[in-house]
């Protein structure tokens, strides 16, 4: 994993519009961000789509990066993209409510890809509520502290701590049920 100095140099290059530096960012972060999106959506195609959106937005917004913790900055954008996706899905659901057949088809589309091999962890993660799952994934993939996550989500630190604790505890129980 790259150290802070390396990341700073690459980000400086990105700010100068250097394509090679952006390519380095893709190499450094695409796997982790893909994992983050996949664990939230359970869908590979959708995760690829969101990953593409993330890097496009990074290109647009890199000028606004002020030198804070880069992973935190990047995952804030990733989280916003995921929320945009949720809102869009919600909007589509509302539009389709009156046409039940089309709605069911849409539901199937946003689910897993046909024939996709879903691991046990993914199946259990999907039994957690969306918000808790997102907090757990944010902490796991971005490595932000509870304080940073709470600030980013605009909620009290005790709430974030409690949600993550309860979520991880429930996940462990779910995983142990089938042992």
């Amino acid at each position, binding site marked *: 994993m790259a150290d802070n100095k390396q990341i700073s140099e690459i980000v400086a290059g990105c700010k100068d519009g250097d394509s090679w530096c952006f390519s380095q960012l893709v190499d450094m972060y695409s796997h982790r961000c893909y994992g983050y999106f*996949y*664990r939230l959506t359970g869908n590979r195609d959708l995760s*690829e789509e969101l990953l593409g959106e993330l890097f496009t937005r990074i290109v647009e917004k890199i000028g606004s990066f002020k030198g804070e913790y880069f992973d935190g900055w990047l995952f804030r954008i990733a989280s916003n993209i995921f929320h945009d996706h949720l809102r869009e899905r919600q909007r589509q659901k509302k539009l389709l409510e009156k046409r039940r057949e089309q709605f069911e088809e849409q539901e199937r589309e946003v689910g897993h890809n046909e024939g996709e091999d879903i691991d046990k*962890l993914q199946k259990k993660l999907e039994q957690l509520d969306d918000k808790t799952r997102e907090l*757990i994934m944010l902490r796991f993939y971005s490595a*932000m502290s509870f*304080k940073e996550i709470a600030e980013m989500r605009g909620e009290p630190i005790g709430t974030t701590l409690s949600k993550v*604790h309860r979520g991880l505890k429930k996940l462990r129980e779910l995983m142990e049920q089938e042992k």
Partner: protein
Amino acid sequence: MNSRKNKNLDELLARFYGGEARKVADDIAQGERILREYPDPKPDEETIILLKAKVTKAVAANREKALRRTYYQVAAFAAAVIVIAFISAALLVNRPIESRWVATTVKVTEDISQNDELFYGDEEMTTLSAEVEQVGNEITALEIGVASEDLDSEWIDVEMGLLDIESDFWKG
């Protein structure tokens, strides 16, 4: 990375859970161990190649947009300088101002500021265009006699407008 992630964690747990802190820390650690035990799905090579191509394209588009923005800004400021110089000279020698020149310059700044959303949210550009347009309208009004009879006062207004534009221009 882990040190950042667990910064002040013990202190936090003690504050919120008191005697239960150790157990909660253990729940969190065990839950995260499960996440680590399952390998992350990874995007395939083709996806990464396509992603890099997409990023390169976005970088090029961004660069082009920045260049066009600079070009139009320079053009807008040049237009503002021309109108300032022209009107100032006309005021100094007390000769009538050819409103077609002012109108042309006003149109140039309007066209630039409306171009392709390049200046969306650019307050300085909007202000400058508005000021040039306002001065242009005032001069036209004076020439065709629409303005009030207090000509001295009207000219002072025009001069004040020019000073505003000049000041905005040098601020960049």
